[in-house]
């Protein structure tokens, strides 16, 4: 198990390095007018030159990259070119907002999607059809549209939830929960419908396998067959879908955070990208890639734990 983890971590580092080089190069292409963007329309060429030297933009790209990498390895991600806020601070205040939303949504999706998926696979008939139709509808409506519908009805018309975030220090936990409810539901609907559909297929596939018939013929109870054997065999497919959901969610969350004015990673990533705020973009990209690598690693470990065959292959 340990060599497996080390191998995966090793390849994760290679991926991080490759992505950092790629992102850095892409940002370099569009960094031509950073100084002017910071100093405004009326800045003189001399003032622009001073700013460029200050940001190190007068150095060759290799030098700049190596200096960024050295700092990053030492734990220093630099500071925003526009706000001077250290990138590490910026990430530290925003990651909790985004991750709270994503983690809560993922836990709920895992539970609800599994229940619905299993119910559809076992009951079939009308339950199955409702799940199938729900999956199509859920997949076809983007999360932000669901978000806007939820805000219009539940926040503006009925006043049950705040229309935009009320997250602030000192505010009691209930305000937090109310602020996060609508965006989490918007994330949930896509996730649950997609996830349930995949889990349903995986469970059906297992139910048709010979070993299920054997277990049943031995008189083992239906409940035990389902939860001890079928679900365990269907889990890898389910976990893969859920991990993809989580990674996809990191994209969906960007728009939802804007609509609900949540001070998470999304708005920061968008602003930084539009401005070509290189240190911030690099920080956001590295963090996102690291999350993806970790999620994949966890999924692989869980699969290995559930199904020892995976570890060997």
């Amino acid at each position, binding site marked *: 198990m340990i060599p497996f983890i080390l191998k995966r971590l090793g390849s994760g580092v290679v991926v991080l390095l490759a992505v950092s080089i790629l992102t850095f190069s892409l940002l370099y292409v569009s960094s031509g*007018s950073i100084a002017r963007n910071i100093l405004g329309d009326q800045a003189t060429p001399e003032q622009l030159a001073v700013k460029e030297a200050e940001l190190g933009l007068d150095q060759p790209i290799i030098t700049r990259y190596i200096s960024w990498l050295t700092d990053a390895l030492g734990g220093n991600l630099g500071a925003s070119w526009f706000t001077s*806020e250290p990138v590490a601070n910026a990430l530290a205040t925003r990651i909790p907002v985004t991750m709270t939303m994503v983690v809560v949504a993922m836990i709920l999706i895992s539970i609800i999607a599994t229940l619905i998926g299993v119910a559809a696979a076992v009951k079939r008939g009308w339950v199955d059809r409702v799940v199938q139709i729900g999956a199509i509808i859920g997949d076809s409506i983007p999360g932000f549209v669901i978000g806007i519908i939820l805000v219009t009805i539940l926040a503006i018309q009925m006043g049950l939830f705040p229309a935009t975030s009320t997250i602030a220090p000192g505010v009691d936990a209930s305000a937090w929960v109310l602020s996060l409810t609508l965006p989490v539901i918007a994330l949930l609907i896509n996730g649950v419908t997609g996830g349930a559909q995949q889990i349903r297929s995986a469970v059906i596939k297992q139910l048709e396998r010979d070993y299920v018939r054997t277990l049943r013929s031995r008189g083992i109870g239906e409940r035990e067959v389902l939860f001890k054997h079928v679900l365990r065999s269907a889990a890898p497919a389910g976990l893969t879908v859920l991990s993809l959901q989580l990674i996809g969610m990191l994209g969906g969350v960007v728009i939802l955070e804007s609509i609900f004015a949540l001070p998470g990673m999304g708005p920061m990533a968008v602003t930084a990208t539009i401005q070509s705020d290189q240190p911030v973009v690099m920080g956001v990209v590295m963090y996102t890639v690291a999350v993806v690598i970790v999620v994949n690693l966890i999924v692989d470990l869980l699969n290995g734990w559930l199904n020892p065959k995976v570890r060997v292959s």
Partner: protein
Amino acid sequence: MKLGPKAAAAALIVSAALALTACGGGATGANPAAAKTTTLTLGTVQEIRSWDPAQAHVGHILQPYQAAYDSLLLRQPDGKLSPMLATAWKYNDTNTKLTLDLRTDVTFSDGAKFDAEAAKANLDHFKTANGPQMAQLTAVTGVTVVDADTIELNLTTPDPSLEFYLSQAAGLMGSPKALGTEAIKTEPVGSGPYVMDKAATVKDSQSVFTARKDYWNKDLQKFQKVTFKTLTDLTARTNALVSGQVDATLLDPKTGKQAEGAKMTLAANQVDWQGLLLMDRDGAKNAPLGNVKVRQAINYAFDRKTILEQVLLGQGTPTSQPFGKESGAWTEELENYYSYDPAKAKQLLKEAGYETGVTLEVPSVPGFETQLAVVKQQLADVGITLNVGSALTNTFTSDIAAQKFTTMYFSLFQGEPWVAINQIVSTKALYNAFKNTTPELQAKIDAVQTGGKDAGKLAQEVNKYVVEQAWFAPMFRVNQMYYHNSKVTVTPQIQQAVPSIYNYAPAF
């Protein structure tokens, strides 16, 4: 979990009903306030980069700084300048030295005293801090402390907009003890009507201010608490206003309809103009543009009123001039200088020798896709082909400076005459990318610069010149759709998309 067919049917009906009410619109968010409000919550379109006063910006980005910082001069809603930290100010005869008398009874929130040395420290800091508005003090070579309550600003050349700038970013005064420190970037230290409540402030979400005790000018301090809630997304701003989370915010014509449905009040104000910038006026890269008749033909090709109705729901005024109505450079006669006349446009193209057609290239500017489509259609009707190129990226200001675009559709601020001249007309202006000029125009610009109090009037000549020479094809001045609820009253501020902080008051 067991769902019966009845439950499933009920769920379907409920969700359908919810969806239908969503489509029905017509929110009911307005609730009349019973008592006079003591708090003001504003939805702002952008997060503050840094609270260092030298990093302050124009218009809607200036507003939050006004909570924490007093400025040397105060700009009234109609644009007149009145005393604030400076009680009187006067130019010398050659308009190259501005003397300011300062208040002596003002302290900063950290206890430091405001005096001539503090004012000098701020102006010096502003000049060297490389902020986004540092060009405001370009003409100032140095600041001299005459005595404890008098300073002199020495200029290389006259700058008719300097007094205006002292009511803007360049005039904001921070505590000399805090200037240049790291702390002031996240927590402002000024002498203004409000002080930041650091504990309640969340970066990228909200900045909270409370009224400062013993503030020297109670007239400017109308609330106990002021919150700036960062809402960069238009949908979020609309939702926050309609649901009562903010008292006032900036919307657009379409979302404005929704706000009106929720009984919000519009405080409209014209700040920007939009239209075509025909930048290659010497025909350096696109020969036909060098011909004034071609540029005039372009101007005659547009049915501005119809475009405005269709694209901006009528929220604006058609115009042929790029200078703003309150700028002093505006004249009635230039308002409809180019009326919709396709026949005349064709005639002018024929006279110019371009009967067979002219081709223009414009970049695709985000947010103006609809305008560009209509412009393309109307130009095609008179025989001009408009090719919409690739989208603008964040390199666009350098691309403009590098003369990459000969023509572009854009929205531009209509500031004070000298500000506008330096933005779109003079050879230093970014939006005069090809640095076009003539001795005749330069003489008119020079007259404005040395014109002192008559600068606005003299700028009418510059305006007339660029309209007659068709340097631009302005379409309309656009209404800023600033909405507020019934708890507060709001007075629009000229040349600002959002009002100054002093223009709000509790209703009743």
